[in-house]
């Protein structure tokens, strides 16, 4: 197992290198000029050219790429063109809100979706099943921003229970932190709940038809024990896969959710950086997201072995 983990971690290196080259090349050939944005709308072409030179954007591709790789190897993600702040600082400022949003969304989604999926499978064909599936269709069909606006309207504007926007760091207290995350997590988690609930239902239905479940029933094991000990554990591998894959969707959804709920996270930083063509920040963020995604896949692979001892690498 130790060797496997080491091999997987080492295998991320070429993946990250390819990602780095791809990201850098893509940004280099993409239209858009940060110098024009910095210079403002009244700037003359000469002003823009002068700013381009001061930023080093006129240098050849390979020189810029080599310089960037050299700095990355020294742990330096560069400096934002716009803020003049180190990219690592910008990411550090923004990572807590995004991680908080994702963690709360994951806990909420798994906590709601798995029991719903199990209940739907247990009562397949009943009203409960139909309601859960109707909810799943709703979660899939309604865009995140629509759910976000509806939640903000009802729970913030009408009922005044929760704030419309903002983020409070966890260092200022658990409850203030959580209050700002409840609505965004529900909005972001809706599609995720739908996905996990459907997958849980489908795999549970399959497992519940297996002979060993009938044997367990014949042995007089209670319904709870059958569902959550015998069936769910055996149905868990595809569910965990979906959860892992869904984290990528969460990163994408976080962009919209963070914008609507004014959460100063990595998603908004990504969008702002792309719109401004702040290349060093975009490159740093894409590398970070790629690394996170590789790491999540590694964790999922390791969880497989815990859930199903037959799986070996």
């Amino acid at each position: 197992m130790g060797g496997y983990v080491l091999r997987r971690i080492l295998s991320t290196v070429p993946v990250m290198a390819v990602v780095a080259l791809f990201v850098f090349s893509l940004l280099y050939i993409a239209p858009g000029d940060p110098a024009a944005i910095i210079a403002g709308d009244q700037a003359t072409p000469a002003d823009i050219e002068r700013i381009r030179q001061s930023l080093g954007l006129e240098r050849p591709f390979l020189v810029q790429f080599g310089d960037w790789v050299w700095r990355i190897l020294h742990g330096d993600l560069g400096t934002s063109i716009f803020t003049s702040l180190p990219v690592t600082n910008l990411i550090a400022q923004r990572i807590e809100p995004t991680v908080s949003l994702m963690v709360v969304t994951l806990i909420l989604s798994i906590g709601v979706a798995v029991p719903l999926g199990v209940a739907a499978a247990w009562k397949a064909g009943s009203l409960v099943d139909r309601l859960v599936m109707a909810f799943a269709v709703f979660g899939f069909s309604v865009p995140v921003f629509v759910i976000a606006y509806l939640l903000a309207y009802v729970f913030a504007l009408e009922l005044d229970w929760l704030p419309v926007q903002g983020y409070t760091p966890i260092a200022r207290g658990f409850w203030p932190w959580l209050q700002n995350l409840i609505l965004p997590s529900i909005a972001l988690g809706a599609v995720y709940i739908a996905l996990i609930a459907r997958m849980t239902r489908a795999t549970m239905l399959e497992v519940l038809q297996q002979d060993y479940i009938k044997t367990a029933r014949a042995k007089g094991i209670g319904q709870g024990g059958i569902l959550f000990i015998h069936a769910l554990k055996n149905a868990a591998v595809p569910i965990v896969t979906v959860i892992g894959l869904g984290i990528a969707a969460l990163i994408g959804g976080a962009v919209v959710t963070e914008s609507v709920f004014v959460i100063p996270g990595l998603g908004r930083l990504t969008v702002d950086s792309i719109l401004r063509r702040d290349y060093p920040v975009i490159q740093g963020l894409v590398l970070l997201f790629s690394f996170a995604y590789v790491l999540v896949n590694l964790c999922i692979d390791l969880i497989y072995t815990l859930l199903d001892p037959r799986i070996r690498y």
Partner: protein
Amino acid sequence: MDRRTLLKSLAGTGALAAVSRFPAPALAQGADARTLRFVPQANLANFDPIWGTQYVVRNAAALVWDTLYGVDENLAPKRQMVESETVTEDGLTWTFTLRPGLKFHNGEPVLAKDAAASMARWSARDPMGIMLQGIQEELVAIDDRSFRWVLKKPFPKMLFALAKNNAPCSFVMPESIAKTDPFKQITEYVGSGPMRFVKDEWVPGARAVFAKNPDYVPRSEPASWLAGGKKILVDRIEWIVMPDPATASAALQNGEVDWWENPISDLVPLLRKNSNINVDIADPLGNIGSFRMNHLYPPFNNVKARRAILMALSQEDYMRALVGSDDKLWRPIPGYFTPGTPLYNEEGGEILKGKRDLDGAKRLLAEAGYKGEPITCVVAQDQPITKAQGDVTADLLKQLGMNVDFVATDWGTTGTRRAMKNPPGQGGWSMFHTWHAGADCINPAAYTAIRCNGDKAWFGWPNSPEVENDITAWFDAKTLDEEKAAMRKLNKDALDFVVYAPTGFFLTYQAWRKNVSGVVKGPLPFPWGVSKTA
């Protein structure tokens, strides 16, 4: 747990929810009366008002850095950091003396050498500053409080240049910071203005915080735009960047923010219904919508083709697309300058008035030799102003029988593409859409878009010695009458030449909660004199 126990538990939870409510967070309970929470027009992504000339940077910089002079609401330059000035009879030597007791936020006194270094950096980037640099003989500190600016020829607009509110403003920084290359960004934000920048709390793209400067000594005159006593009546101003207008609207209604700089017109009716919110015009100088044609390539290298566009375009169509049915928010302008300002005129504006002449425009296009070449119309879709104008233009061109190559893109790409001088079919462009702040268009001083100096002109590169001569005549004018005469000729010549196509004059709103008082209309959101009750 059986079914009945579960149902009882749920009922209990429901009752609990009915009689109680979540304790509202600090933000929702009503902000501290000493903290003003403000939603700016855009993200404060950088904070060097000379290096980056976006309006949002200027607006933030006006809190932190002071200027030697400031324009008041009559657009007249008034002393601000300056106590007195003298100019020799030949108009060549200006001597400025600073007010006593001025201090930077780091406690250091503001000295004449700081002002001189700041003017040197500013004049490398500002259009009027560049003109000053071109005729500068010497810019030097004489003693701690006085500096001298010696010119090779008179520059009658000196005080206006130092007072104007167009970006970049002539902000005064410590000499050590002001010596930074004007094309490189400063990293220390030390000013002598009424507020200091709290760098530790700055989250670019999300939040910027300004704290009251206890050492600031406001002038005794009443505040008027950038002039007079800048009295700060709150301890902190927090800028909260909200990219989504619906969220900003909800936050204002909920009392989570106090003042929103630019609510979109679609949401204004909703805000007006809220008895806790005031809505009013933000900037009386407004904006001028525009699309620029490329003067380098057919068909718009021919003045007849450009005139054909002016003959056919309906400013009302553009403005309705921009601001909807609210007639208070727009007016047609048969010219290039900001309505309601002293030098506004409509000389030569007949081509934009009256019934639109599509047939005449088609004839003129034919005379210009237009034979159906594709018109590359670049339209940024992520800016509501450019998108709305672009849609109207595309329709107009089709009505004129033109072959429209509609390039839907984003503002960042537009910024690059408009700088390309390639032919339209080879990465270049035929026209792009933008807008100009009315504050920039009150005269030619900072009006880059009106310049017609060919390669050095703004994108589209119009070349008209006649228009350039008119601009020079305005700069040289010594009396208001001379200025007016120069401006009338300039408006006429610019329209004859069709420097660009003005699509109309439009205003925007601002909104604030009723527990906030002292909000005024102006080209930037002035926080001085603004107070708040709990």
